[in-house]
């Protein structure tokens, strides 16, 4: 464990830190954008990093967009980025089902069209996307026709979530051989204008409770999100920096994977929370202490442009 952690990143330290890494992984919400607005200075930081020969990746728990949709949003906000640099949970869940679960069959999907597209792209056929209102009487629901080819249930953000979908997932999950995967456990989904709605974590808890089973979770802080990037781009963890706004997802992921970590204060977590974790005796909380913090990632711009 580093003797000094949770240090404010000064200009001098910035230069030192940047020299010690080849790749920088950014969370998105609360770090490089908030809703539909870029954090001021963030596009310049990303673009300067690339000019300085660093590789840049975007790692987000948000499952509502495909890699291409994220690339489009990044482009619109002035970031120089390509789809293959983006690792959202829609894409990563599809990779997880294909490569880790070695799924041969369909998946019952509670999720978005973006998730459907990412699954189809890796050759997995999803069933169940879209509105699914209740019909019939109670005994009918236990007897909903089940697709025999479904071998997994995947839960992501779904604004069409309903009792019927919860019921279908439960019926599939009564078979212990049916795999159970969730995109992430975030309790809130941030929206434009600083608003938020209940997040995927809530839907996942509903399904886990009904089925009395725990899902395998793909998103941060699960290591898989980093491994997905690392396996495609041959990353050395010791030469990677994880930049995020949440101690319990971004910084935890960084700690677990042996990356350097930078907390930015433009999002969810605070320095006070980080320092409280640092003082605690609990090993779990110790993993939620960043190496460094900045008020905003724009703060590293001077070091990049020097």
């Amino acid at each position: 464990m580093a003797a000094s952690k949770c240090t404010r990143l000064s200009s001098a330290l910035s230069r030192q830190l940047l020299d010690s890494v080849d790749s920088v992984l950014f969370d998105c919400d609360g770090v490089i954008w908030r809703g539909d607005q870029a954090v001021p200075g963030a596009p310049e930081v990303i673009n300067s990093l690339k000019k300085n020969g660093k590789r840049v990746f975007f790692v987000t728990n948000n499952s509502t967009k495909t890699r291409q949709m994220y690339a489009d949003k990044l482009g619109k906000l002035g970031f120089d980025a390509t789809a293959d640099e983006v690792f959202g949970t829609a894409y990563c869940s599809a990779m997880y089902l294909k490569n880790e679960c070695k799924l041969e069959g369909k998946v019952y999907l509670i999720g978005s069209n973006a998730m459907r597209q990412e699954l189809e792209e890796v050759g997995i056929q999803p069933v169940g996307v879209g509105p699914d209102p209740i019909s019939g009487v109670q005994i009918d629901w236990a007897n909903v026709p089940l697709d025999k080819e479904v071998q997994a249930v995947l839960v992501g953000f779904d604004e069409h979530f309903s009792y019927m979908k919860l019921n279908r997932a439960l019926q599939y999950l009564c078979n212990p051989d049916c795999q159970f995967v969730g995109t992430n456990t975030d309790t809130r989904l941030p929206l434009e204008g600083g608003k938020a709605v209940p997040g995927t974590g809530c839907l996942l808890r509903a399904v886990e409770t009904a089925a009395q089973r725990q899902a395998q979770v793909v998103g941060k802080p699960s290591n898989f999100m980093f491994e997905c990037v690392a396996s495609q781009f041959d990353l050395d963890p010791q030469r990677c920096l994880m930049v995020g706004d949440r101690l319990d997802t971004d910084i935890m992921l960084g700690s677990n994977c042996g990356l350097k970590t930078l907390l930015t204060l433009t999002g969810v977590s605070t320095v006070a929370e980080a320092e409280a974790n640092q003082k605690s005796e609990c090993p779990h909380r110790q993993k939620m202490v960043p190496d460094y913090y900045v008020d905003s990632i724009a703060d590293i711009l001077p070091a990049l442009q020097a």
Partner: protein
Amino acid sequence: MAGTVTSSRGCVTLRGAQIRDLLDAKHNVLFDCDGVIWNGETAVTGAPEVVSLLKQRGKRVFFVTNNCTRPRENYVQKFCRLGFTDVAEEEIFSSAYCSAAYLRDVARLQGKVYVIGCGGVMKELQDAGVPVVEEDSAADREPGTSIYNCPLDPDVKAVLVGYDENFTFMKLAKACCYLRNSECLFLATDPDPWHPLRGGRITPGSGSLTAALETASSRKATVIGKPSRFMYECIASQFDLDPARSLMIGDRLETDILFGSNCGLSTVLTLTGVSTLEEAHRYRDSEAPEQKDCVPDYVVESVADFLQALEE
């Protein structure tokens, strides 16, 4: 651990004279319904006779169910239909009825309640005179209304969540908005994660919807139904009950038996429903103190086992 004795108390199979002795000692008998006196639309063989005989012997009988899908008057009809004669509405305590009683008598709600629930709950709230926010109001259908900007009623002072076959993301989002006000009460009808249906099938229960809302709001609901004490307190407030002279008969260890333990009642597990004898033994043999409360004092195959003792 030296000195620790694993209690082998509990799970005593009731037979013959023991049943008679137990009944002699108890004045009040509380029955769970699903899996105890009926399964779906079929009475457990002998159950109607047992209830009748208990009453003839001067015992008071109550029905305590977490099932919130029917108002009490529907339960009376179901009892009739299934051959239970003279079960009165006052003897039936469902989580829907008790949730309404809680809002009216304990919380003394001054305002409206936002309900995620079914017809049974709505009817009990109406009968209790507790104002409910109208669902499916015209405002929800206004163009541009979405989960991101749904209209809220300023008079809402409580949120009640229970089994709801019409549950949607919109309802979850709205309930979460109301719960941002820490003064707004947060109630759940019951904690059951799933409910059993005919043929060993199951359907998602109130507990799964409550879990979603607790996660969204970062708040814990006050649970009305078993194993919480409130349903017992509701009965006790209307009838004079001595816990030492009361017996709880149920089929679900984590709700009925734990409820009985929590209220100081003797408990009987019947094997015609959800829990098995093996599960009861696992709780009995466990080291964890909180698991001990799920151990029934007695076990019977079916409530029909009481018939012989009652007919003598």
